[in-house]
């Protein structure tokens, strides 16, 4: 890996013309008796690859639940396409954090992707042609055309993540929410998946938010970072957010951002902490 690969991409120029796709203003998130994080203001544009990083339990998935309309903010406003988030928005594709795929589920991949296309509709379909075609297109987009007839339980971790990505893409969304897609993958597979997400982001002009533990595999592709820790949220380009000064000021403690010769980043001084309890 060369040092130049680690430089981050500039924000897409189109961003200055189009209005922001996702905006948040002074958002406070959590539950009635427990604030998870507060004071989040952000603006994400079309065609951006955004990393959502931070320690375990900091509230990364909470951000996704807010965007999906599965949870309401305690205060502040979130807008997607200039509207409040709502459940079942077909313009959002979602890959949840998976744990186990049932070993008995030998349903073929095409069927799962197909269900992501039409599974929310009531009643019977007499012809599944359109849906199957959409599923095939989505599988091709993730380089998984040959996986279509394979049963889900015969896939490797990397293949499975590609199927989940196809599932998210099948409704032709403008936003992708990927919750820890890299967590079960080895370094090489993780790298391949990040490249795939990057390709999808560029070719389809979608905005992808990707939750990850480690920002380093993502750095070469990122437009923005959402850093969630200790009940606070920092957003901006990696150069803006990942500095000792910015994080120290935000967290009111000495935080050090260290970069090694390859451009890898390490953040020191923020420990795992479960929000404002």
């Amino acid at each position: 890996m060369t040092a130049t690969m680690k430089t981050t991409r500039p924000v897409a120029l189109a961003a200055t013309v189009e209005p922001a796709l996702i905006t948040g203003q002074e958002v406070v998130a959590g539950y009635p008796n427990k604030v998870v994080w507060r004071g989040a203001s952000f603006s994400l544009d079309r065609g951006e690859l955004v990393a959502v990083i931070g320690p375990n339990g900091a509230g990364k998935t909470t951000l996704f639940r807010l965007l999906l309309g599965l949870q309401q903010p305690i205060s502040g406003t979130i807008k997607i396409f200039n509207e409040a988030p709502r459940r079942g928005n077909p313009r959002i594709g979602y890959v949840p954090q998976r744990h186990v795929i049932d070993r008995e589920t030998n349903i073929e991949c095409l069927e799962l992707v197909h269900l992501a296309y039409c599974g929310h509709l009531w009643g019977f379909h007499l012809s599944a042609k359109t849906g199957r075609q959409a599923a095939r297109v989505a599988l091709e987009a993730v380089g998984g055309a040959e996986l279509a007839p394979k049963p889900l339980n015969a896939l490797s971790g990397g293949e499975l993540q590609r199927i989940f990505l196809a599932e998210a893409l099948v409704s032709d969304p403008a936003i992708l929410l990927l919750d820890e897609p890299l967590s079960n993958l080895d370094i090489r597979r993780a790298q391949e998946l990040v490249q795939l997400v990057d390709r999808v982001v560029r070719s389809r002009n979608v905005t992808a938010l990707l939750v990850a533990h480690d920002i380093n595999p993502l750095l070469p592709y990122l437009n923005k970072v959402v850093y969630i820790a200790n009940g606070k949220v920092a957003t901006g380009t990696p150069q803006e957010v990942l500095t000792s000064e910015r994080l120290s000021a935000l967290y009111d403690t000495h935080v050090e951002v260290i970069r090694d010769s390859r451009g890898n980043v390490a953040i020191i001084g923020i420990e795992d902490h479960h929000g404002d309890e």
Partner: protein
Amino acid sequence: MSWSANVLIDLEQMLQYQFMQHAFEAGTLVAIVAGIVGYFVVLRRSSFAAHALSHIGFAGAAGAVLLGISPVIGLLAFTSVGGVGMTVLGPRASNRDVQIGTVLAFMLGLGVLFISLYTGYATEAYSILFGEILGISATDVLVTAIAALVILFAVAVVYRPLLFASLDEDVAEAKGLHMHMLGIVFMLLVALATSIAVQVVGVLLIFSLMVTPAAIAQRLAKRPWRAVVLSVIISLVATWLGLTVAFYEPYPVSFFITTIVFVLYVLVRFLQPKIKPIRARQTALQVGQMAPSEITA
């Protein structure tokens, strides 16, 4: 009664009897419904729920006998209430075992009370436990037909959302489906299907129609629709074959049905991997425990 060399003559002989006609009518309806609902039971890994609901049905039937009304009414009432109760107490499909067990134990306790209060009892309880397909009346067939139609209609309406929710709960929820509502619909389907299937195989042997055929089908078919059809075919064949054999041999119908599906399951379970070596690379994905690294943000 004994077998002749000609199958057609055998069938004709058998179907002369009205109780055999009723048995075939009810058996066919139950096999179709159990094959379909059973597929979702297997897919959602809810066999414990199906098991619990049938036992709860026993308590309901005992209560109905005590009150002097048709056992089917008690079955329907108790399984429906029990099914909804389980879903309300444990909204997520995964990890519902404890709630199911709690409701099961309570309602079986009621069953014990009903039986102790009822003084006549013996054959009724026996037939509920092991099925009484050869004693089915024309009214029973009608009730079964109506229940079967309701189930088929409901499945036709919820087929895709229920399939999606069963396979991929989180994404389905994000797509706007209400998991809780679908969970209740599913439990009511199982409750209804269980109530009518009890007539054929009884409370204790409900799995032979509700779980085993679907489990076999799921191993053989990779597309849900095909698996549903296959599951129905298997439970139909087992029911018809069981009824026919039991007509000529002096052993219970439910014994033959359970044996047929079990033998089929064992055969498929052990022969299929040899026929189709697809699963060579079977991977069990576990929760990825990230190695704690200091160079992570």
